[in-house]
């Protein structure tokens, strides 16, 4: 039986608008991976957060953009 756990409350984003929480977590994961390497476990925290908070269509679109090289931010 899995224990129920989700992305925690982040005091950097205390208000209704959580768009930045999703986007920042996505960027932080890939930047963390780039700097620390793919096997660095603590980076997975960001992945857990963006998987919980970001809509799947947004994540898929950003993944496609990263592969095409058209992703708008620097990783």
């Amino acid at each position, binding site marked *: 039986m899995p224990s*129920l*756990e*989700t*992305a925690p*409350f982040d005091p950097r984003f205390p208000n*209704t608008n959580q768009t930045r929480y999703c986007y920042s977590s996505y960027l932080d994961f890939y930047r963390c991976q780039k700097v620390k390497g793919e096997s660095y476990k603590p980076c997975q925290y960001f992945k857990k957060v963006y*998987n919980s908070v970001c*809509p*799947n269509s947004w994540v898929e679109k950003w993944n496609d953009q990263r592969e095409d090289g058209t992703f708008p931010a620097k990783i």
Partner: protein
Amino acid sequence: MMTWKTLMSPDSASPLMEQLTFLHDHALMILLMITVLVGYLMASLFVNKFNYRYLLEGQTIEMIWTILPAVILIFIALPSLRLLYLLDEVNNPLVTVKTIGHQWYWSYEYTDFANIEFDSYMIPSNEMEDYHFRLLDVDNRIAVPYNSQIRMIVTAADVLHSWTIPTLGVKIDATPGRLNQISFLLNRTGIFFGQCSEICGANHSFMPIVMESISPECFISWIYNMSEI
């Protein structure tokens, strides 16, 4: 859910909605008492024979009917502000559910543990069974565990929609390109209904929301069943 008999708020399924109902009842009681008082005064003016030609002033009564309304307003304002701040309390959710509004259905995603996504279409009237509520029932309901803080992230894929469940006291706009968060806790099991609350085209009235509140064990088995589909 609302029926034609629902005059005031529906029964609440969440502690915050309960508090909203209490505040409403408290403020309405004060308003009704003032209305009855003013109505009585006006009615008695029609039927009494009092007159006094030399009336100029009445300082004491003027003081009373200036201070008393201020006091009454304090009685309304204090519970109201308390609830206003209570609604903005920070809480640590147990489950995150995402909902995306489309024209003209809602889709839900549970991605904390398994990648569960499904669409929730209204059951058309010509495909209804006897036990369905017309224009309110859907093919796939959202399941949530009760007595657990739920975080709902609401967005839209095309135009503005609004996600609401009146018995939970929740209504939040679904805006394309924006993630709106709302948090609630259900304190009883049951099935709760809502309807899209922002005009979104031809079938705006035909994209309802149905939430089923179940025990945490049932929720975990529901997650297992859904993730195999």
